[in-house]
């Protein structure tokens, strides 16, 4: 029996003690978002309660299962019963759950969201039967939220490193053939077939080759990579080992954003464990294959998501892209053949090795095989991270999985600053690289931001172009100067200072930047403008001709008013107004001085949430001829 088999046995034994255990085990979702939602406080309540009642518990900090709208999540398995999960747990609730379920042994499981595992329990439904989860196909996110990301044995007990074990018994060429047949395409957004990329690198002769994992998840509104690394770091690391073996690399780098401190800590911890168990360093699992993996922290530059810019950044230079060819697969880091793959791509590789390319091809549609993770956020009921087969319709994602919007749906923004806005008429298109491109957007890394009637499309375009302009590295003129001019035009439209020919100017400038920029950043930066012009042109015209912002967002085009009949004079708004624009004695309708009003929304919000009357302050935008 070799070392790996022994380790697997130990891991399975440890994992099996967790399910249906007599011991009290409490799992808390401690990803960055879980912590932001208050998971640290829940942890404290649990530890305090255990002390107070003098019971021994095992607390396991897990990652995130992706149902962010249910954060913080707390799972309990005890008394030989399956693990059950409680959602939106407040400190008070955590205290009550602990007391009732664990101490008083009350039948409190009915309040839970469901159970995990195979064994039915107490008439509860399976956690994965929830509307947000039941339409998903979880491959790369399979372990997220379920295992302890800091315990390599949990990963191994869930088929971890079996993909690597299989890979090491094959030749690199066989692996590349399998990956090519599986048809997986780059999940970073561009969708280039991974197998073909690897083949190019494999076939290039060199004394040294590199593998770089691009974890510089820069798209605002996207957090797929963060969640995967925080929740299941070994999935990525196993993928890196297989990829490095296939292309013949002896050094791998993970280029990760410094804004993800927890993900970095998890990776560092996982790397130490890998060394300890022989998954890293010389002669991995007793084979001829050796690899070292280094973490490189990004220093905050969106353009470093572009592969040649990323390479420059690792080399210690300004992160500016260069023209291609030569492609990095031929000449990359330090002039050596280099493969750069996205986190999700690499995280999927072990599954393909484990189950075979045929298995992988059953998911998705022709030319777009497999699953894709998306961060479903914005004006949506159930936000979070999801994984669906490619080819799933946007409607299914937004309505069946996300539960739709509270206010009328307007558009969905895909692909981050390089993508576009897709209107409701196109919600039935399948999500594939080609169909999204045809609709004027891109797949991108997987951000899906849902927009409703309260979102101004001109403002959204301005927001993205402002982002692209700030992040432009300045190397080529179309991107450096062009994006600046586009932002200026959009700002004037939002301020009601546009001239009639602005739309033509905007369109021609956007097309110019798109066709003449050096790298992907500039070539795709105009997409938010072009797609909103294509589907929401009327909204631009209303801004220009009527100085009217239908979503009531553009501050120069809106006004705040107090409705005298509704105002009870509770003075809440008076107390929050920073400029003294609202005045009036208690119990009498207040006055709002429009000249002093800076449209900060403070009065509007306090009137809706805190005030006695509610909704006495309104925002309007009046049409001008």
């Amino acid at each position, binding site marked *: 029996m070799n070392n790996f088999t022994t380790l697997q046995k130990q891991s399975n034994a440890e994992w099996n003690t967790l399910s249906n255990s007599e011991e009290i085990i409490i799992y808390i979702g401690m990803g*960055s978002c879980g912590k932001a939602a208050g998971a640290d406080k829940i942890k404290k309540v649990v530890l305090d309660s255990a002390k107070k009642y003098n019971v021994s518990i095992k607390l396991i900090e897990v990652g995130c299962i992706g149902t962010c709208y249910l954060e913080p999540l707390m799972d309990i398995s005890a008394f030989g019963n399956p693990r059950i999960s409680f959602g939106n747990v407040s400190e008070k609730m955590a205290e009550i759950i602990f007391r009732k379920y664990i101490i008083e042994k009350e039948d409190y499981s009915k309040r839970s969201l469901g159970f995990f595992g195979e064994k039915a329990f107490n008439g509860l439904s399976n956690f994965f039967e929830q509307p947000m989860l039941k339409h998903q196909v979880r491959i790369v996110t399979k372990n997220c939220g379920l295992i302890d990301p800091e315990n390599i044995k949990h990963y191994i007990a869930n088929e971890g490193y079996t993909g690597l074990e299989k890979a090491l018994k094959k030749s690199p060429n066989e692996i590349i053939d399998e990956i090519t047949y599986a048809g997986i395409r780059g999940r970073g957004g561009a969708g280039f077939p991974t197998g073909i990329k690897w083949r190019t690198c494999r076939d290039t002769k060199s004394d040294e080759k590199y593998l770089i994992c691009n974890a510089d998840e820069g798209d605002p509104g996207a957090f797929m990579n963060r969640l995967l690394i925080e929740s299941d770091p070994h999935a990525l690391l196993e993928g890196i080992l297989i990829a490095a073996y296939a292309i013949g690399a002896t050094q791998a780098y993970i280029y990760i954003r410094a804004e993800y401190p927890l993900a970095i800590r998890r990776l560092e911890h996982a790397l130490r464990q890998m060394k300890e168990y022989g998954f890293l360093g010389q002669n991995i699992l007793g084979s001829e294959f050796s690899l070292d993996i280094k973490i*490189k922290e990004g*220093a905050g530059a969106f353009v470093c998501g572009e592969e040649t810019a990323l390479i420059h950044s*690792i080399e210690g230079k300004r992160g500016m892209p260069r023209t291609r060819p030569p492609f990095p697969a031929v000449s990359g880091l330090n002039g050596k053949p280099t493969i750069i793959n996205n986190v999700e791509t690499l995280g999927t590789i072990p599954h393909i090795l484990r189950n075979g390319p045929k298995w992988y091809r059953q998911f998705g549609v022709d030319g777009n095989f497999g699953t894709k993770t998306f961060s479903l956020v914005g004006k949506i009921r159930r936000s979070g991270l999801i994984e669906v087969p490619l080819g799933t319709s946007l409607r299914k994602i937004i309505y069946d999985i996300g539960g739709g919007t509270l206010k009328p749906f307007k558009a969905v923004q895909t692909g981050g600053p390089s993508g576009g806005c897709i209107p409701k008429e196109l919600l039935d298109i399948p999500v594939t690289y080609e169909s999204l491109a045809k609709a004027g957007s891109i797949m991108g890394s997987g951000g899906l931001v849902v927009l409703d009637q309260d979102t101004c499309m001109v403002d959204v375009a301005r927001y993205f172009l402002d982002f692209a302009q700030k992040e432009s590295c300045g190397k080529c003129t179309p991107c450096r100067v062009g994006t600046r001019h586009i932002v200026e035009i959009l700002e004037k439209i939002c301020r009601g200072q546009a001239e009639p020919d602005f739309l033509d100017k905007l369109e021609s400038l956007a097309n110019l930047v798109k066709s003449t920029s050096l790298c992907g950043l500039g070539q795709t930066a105009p997409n938010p403008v072009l797609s909103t012009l294509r589907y929401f042109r009327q909204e631009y015209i209303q801004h220009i001709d009527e100085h009217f912002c239908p979503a009531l967002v553009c501050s120069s085009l809106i006004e705040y008013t107090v409705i005298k009949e509704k105002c009870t004079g509770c003075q809440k708004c008076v107390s929050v107004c920073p400029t003294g624009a609202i005045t009036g004695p208690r119990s009498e309708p207040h006055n709002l001085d429009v000249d002093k009003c800076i449209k900060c929304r403070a009065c509007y*919000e306090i009137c809706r949430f805190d005030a006695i009357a509610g909704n006495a302050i309104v925002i309007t935008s009046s049409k001008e001829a």
Partner: protein
Amino acid sequence: MEQLDISYDKILHAYPREEGSLIPLLQKAQSINRYISLEIVEVVADYLGMTESQVYGVASFYSQFRFTEPGKHSISVCLGTACHVNGGETLLDTFERELDIKPGECTADKKFDLNRVACLGCCALAPVVKVDDDIYSQVNIIKLKEIWSSYE
């Protein structure tokens, strides 16, 4: 620079003398000194055999590096897409007005510095504000005052 003076050599020599060490070295220096001072630029340039302008050229390219002393607490307002459509910009405006500083600046009493960040990746909880290492979710203008008044 006092803290850095103590173990200059020790810090520097943990990194090989090559161009690729530049960014990790600057990151280390900033994590100790909280910002990149002129002296750090000089020392790093000298160690790596580069000119000061080359070092500054790289450092100023990346938004992580700051060249002025930060406040006691760092406030970062997330302006990712989800935060933007949920009112992130209004939060930034409010901080600017109430603290009377612009992003990248520090209050006169050195208590707070204010920053805009592109995305903290907590999009499902938007809008999000980060103070030092604490992330606050679903923030509105009314919650904001409570947040900064809770910091000494």
